């Protein structure tokens, strides 16, 4: 069934909200400042409920089924976290409350910083960035401020071809020119390649580890040494932290700056696009460059410290996405040291899928993977079946497709990240579905071209959408 757009519904004078009682006079206002008010449709409360209930039914979420979107870590979002974020003392707190009335929030932030420091091995943490790429930007601002403070601003940043897609744009925003680094034949960085490119004009390197092929960058120590030797810094994209909690101490292996995606590793929901949170963890040496205000502890009281002359400044008006921090904090407290199991099971699940499917789909790098594995459509191409077809057909089996055509280093990539939330039974169903699709590619390629069959709409014309953009109604 169709659901009309909001403004195709309603009738002027209806209302879907309870307006507070008017208890004061109308105050006059200079007419030249007054507008007509927006042309919003007037709906009743049942209209609003039904509209969004219906829309929601056309959406697939983690609550609907397995969502193996590679590099996105679509794990279960615990319901208790929503309860915690909605506690009136948090949800109704103004960001500029006096410190005496903010101790609960500041305690939470201080503790969360500490936990993230412990998990990453990078002890100084800012919670201000509102998303992963915002964290990357913050990290690049720190790179810039660090080199500027040394008196030698630098102009380039090395970015491997297996890094996350956002990295070049984040570097560019800070005026750095991204320099691509090719990964080696095993899908990991070779120290010699980095050594060839690293120079004293280069601020450092941005490494995603595990990388977007789902492989651990096994030469990370050597690479870091090379970069450090030239006075550069090592940035870690921590979006894939779900693979290595308790397994790797990121600070110890040479990373100087790392952002985390709380909406990936730490279970906060992605909300159909956000909000996320992208805390940045750094070495003690880099702590002075972190954004202000910093949450600090004086005796048994917490306060906000603005007095950080080397700080990059502010990246968010207030304290970042605090409500998301509450959820991540709740998750960490719920698991504690079991976070190591999270990583172990995430990696177990990915390897189980990899081994189960490798006879059916082409596996470009056949080695132990971390939390995700990357296949391609190479075996299916002879039947004119492409990655896109395979992805769309998975919808008909009740699964969200994996990430496709990424990473770019692999042609026709199918990037599967199951996460630790999925049970063996679910993985078996998913594997079975992909095997059936591989079989169907041979026997009925047109079935795949015509998929998906079951969702509300079929394949959409994205080209027309971009050619003649219709962005509002």
């Amino acid at each position, binding site marked *: 069934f169709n659901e009309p757009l909001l403004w195709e519904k309603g009738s002027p004078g209806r209302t879907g909200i309870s307006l507070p009682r008017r*208890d004061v006079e109308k105050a006059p206002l200079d007419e030249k400042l007054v507008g007509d008010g927006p042309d919003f449709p007037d709906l009743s409360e049942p209209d609003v409920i039904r509209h969004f209930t219906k829309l929601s039914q056309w959406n697939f979420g983690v609550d609907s089924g397995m969502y193996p979107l590679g590099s996105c870590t679509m794990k279960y979002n615990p319901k208790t976290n929503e309860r915690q974020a909605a506690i009136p003392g948090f949800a109704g707190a103004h960001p500029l409350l006096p410190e005496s009335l903010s101790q609960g929030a500041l305690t939470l932030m201080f503790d969360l910083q500490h936990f993230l420091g412990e998990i990453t091995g990078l002890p100084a943490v800012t919670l201000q960035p509102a998303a992963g790429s915002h964290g990357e930007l913050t990290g690049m601002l720190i790179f810039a401020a660090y080199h500027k403070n040394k008196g030698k601003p630098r102009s380039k940043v090395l970015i491997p071809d297996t890094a996350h897609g956002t990295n070049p744009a984040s570097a560019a925003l800070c005026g750095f020119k991204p320099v691509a680094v090719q990964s080696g034949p095993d899908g990991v960085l070779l120290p010699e390649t980095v050594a060839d490119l690293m120079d004293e004009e280069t601020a450092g390197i941005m490494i995603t580890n595990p990388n977007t092929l789902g492989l651990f960058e096994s030469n990370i120590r050597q690479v870091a040494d090379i970069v450090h030797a030239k006075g550069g810094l090592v940035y870690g994209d921590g979006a894939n932290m779900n693979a290595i909690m308790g397994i790797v101490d990121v600070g110890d292996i040479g990373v100087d700056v790392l952002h985390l995606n709380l909406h990936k590793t730490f279970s906060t929901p992605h909300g159909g696009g956000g909000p996320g949170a992208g805390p940045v963890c750094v070495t003690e040496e880099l702590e002075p460059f972190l954004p202000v205000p910093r949450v600090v502890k004086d005796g048994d009281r917490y306060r906000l410290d603005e007095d950080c002359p080397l700080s990059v400044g502010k990246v968010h008006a207030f304290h970042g996405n605090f409500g998301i921090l509450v959820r991540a904090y709740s998750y960490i407290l719920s698991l504690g*040291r079991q976070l190591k199991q999270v990583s172990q099971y995430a990696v177990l699940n990915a390897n189980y899928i990899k081994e189960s499917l490798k006879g059916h789909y082409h596996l470009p790098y056949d080695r132990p993977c971390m939390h995700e594995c990357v296949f391609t459509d190479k075996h299916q191409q002879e039947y004119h079946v492409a990655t896109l077809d395979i992805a769309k057909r998975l*919808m008909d089996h009740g699964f969200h497709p994996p990430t496709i055509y990424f990473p770019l280093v692999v042609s026709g990539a199918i990037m599967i990240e199951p996460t630790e939330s999925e049970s063996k039974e679910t993985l078996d169903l998913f594997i079975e579905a992909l095997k059936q699709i591989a079989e169907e590619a041979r026997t009925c390629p047109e079935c795949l071209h015509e998929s998906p069959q079951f969702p509300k709409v079929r394949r959409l014309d994205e080209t027309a959408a971009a050619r003649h953009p219709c962005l509002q109604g």
Partner: protein
Amino acid sequence: MRYLPHTQEDIQQMLQVAGAADLEALFSSIPDDCRRKDEMNLPDPLTEWELNGHMDRLAAGMGASSAYKVFLGAGSYNHYIPETTRQLLLRGEIFTAYTPYQPEISQGTLQTIYEYQTLVCRLLGMEVANASMYDGASGLAEALLMTIRASRRKRVAVSRAVHPLYRKVVETYFAPTDFEVIELPVGADGLTDFSGLSDLGELAGVALQSPNFFGCIEDLEAAGQTIHADPKTLFVVAFSEPLAYGLLKSPGACGADIACGEGQSLGIPQSFGGPGLGMFAARQKYVRTMPGRLIGKTTDKDGKTGFVLTLATREQHIRREKATSNICSNQGLCATAATMYMAALGGTGIRELSNLNRDRAEYLKAALADAGCASPFSAPTFNEFVVRFPDGFADTWQALLEKKIVAGLNLAPYYPELADCWLMCVTETLSKEDLDALVKEVTR
């Protein structure tokens, strides 16, 4: 642990398939010298019930609006949020979905955000709105960078009456670039003073905020004319209280090229400052220089209407270092909340709510003025305003905390010249009774 489904038996079977002797063996590709030697020093896991108790205790001491009468605004506003919005947002299909990269099974998110874009355009009088930025501050920074892309100039001007924390974020974003930010002064009436504008040379963009940080309503129409004296300069209107545009002439109607600001007022809890909603809209002709995601309408292969992410060639994952921004995750769920809230309010509702906010604030302003605490500024205001209090008010303010009243924001840290001034905010959540009580207390 209830989030982790694996039993020991499952693990054994899976390890066998994976070809690993045990869980540790799964990590054989990590060199020994990269393996963590110690255990993470984290606390014992809490049960769901222990966590509830712990969080309730932490939250209990907060000076939140559930326990206090809070006269703070300054970019975060306490508005009533309908229970409908709260319950709808908890629907798993909405809040546990990713960015709608697969449109066939994401039409809920996509239609919602398309509706959001449309309502935002209607509210701000603009032609195209994106799917959201992080917050009002980063949105302003991105807007100023966009004026630089659009105009190919290198200098922008920002009013000193723009939220000081937004200006700090702008400063941060501009620090590593070779672009320049110039501050426009504030006049005695509380409004931006444009008298020196023509001396500033070629400007990519000029940004002001309305209602500005002092709650004063800028004369956007006049400002637009002044700024557009140079036709290549983009006029950026920022805001922290979008509810004002239920009543005020919209940025678009006044000639704005970009309108951007914080949308937390539209059905989103204050949550100690985030997550909020960076609203961002522009004229159609600038769409290809805009940051952020856009949803467009199209058809499926059967000709049925549907919605998709579009114009992605501006974005970081396609255009990489040449992207219009690095933004990827945005504030989607907050945009969804705002859509629900705007749908519930309707045109009639937002008008009345906007009026009520202003009328209550005017009531308090007049009552305080009668009591000898006048505003230093003469310009009309929306739902917040600056008051100059007599010496010693800082002590009164502190004493009022004991009575569970947070009597506004002292401006000293933000504007040293207004050290004896406080910014007072009144929304519909504070009744006449609350206002009378405040007047009585502060003039005691």
